[in-house]
């Protein structure tokens, strides 16, 4: 799974800590999602997409899509 989180974070000048605080998770969780090492729950994916003003399917790119 690939993600556009880093790109969108940079667009809104947001650090991993800022995003984690707003999504209510730990910074490591954001880091692991960005590196594709952790697949978030639908609830968290939706929350992150909302913070980054995008949609879940635009934020996460699954292999084969």
């Amino acid at each position, binding site marked *: 799974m690939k993600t556009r989180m880093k790109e969108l974070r940079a667009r809104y000048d947001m650090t991993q800590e800022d995003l*984690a*605080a707003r999504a*209510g*998770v*730990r*910074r*490591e*969780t954001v880091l*692991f999602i960005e*590196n*594709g*090492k*952790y*697949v*978030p*729950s639908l609830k*968290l994916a939706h929350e992150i997409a909302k913070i980054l003003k995008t949609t879940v399917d635009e934020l996460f790119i699954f292999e084969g899509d």
Partner: protein
Amino acid sequence: MDERRRFRVFIGIVVSIVVIGSLFVVGAARAENADNWALLASAVTVCALAFVALLVARKRLKEMKSGIPSEDERLTAIKERAGYLSFFASMYVCLGLGFIFGVFTEDGTIEFLTVGEIMFLLVAVMGIIYMLAWTAVSRGTGRL
């Protein structure tokens, strides 16, 4: 009980363990009895574990004060996965140890350990397996 109070209670328990464990170590050392190695080793282990737990709790409390959640869905997933893996690994290791003890005790190669020593050994092995599983899973294998 709110999260902060729960942490304070946890720290209190850990401090009690450190104090009691230290008293055991001092008591065993003063007895100058060579047979006390198991007691001494278990007390040192408990103290070490309690010390680590205290450090972790201190870090978590600090994070909580700055608004970082002490647990999130990834940590919960790690706990579940590490628990599942270590349960099966511990089961096979315990069976293996039982077999080894059985074989070597029968032919008299090793002297059979006491129940207390075996319990200490098994709990230590299970703890180590859980820590290894936790480390492996938390490093992120993409299978969470």
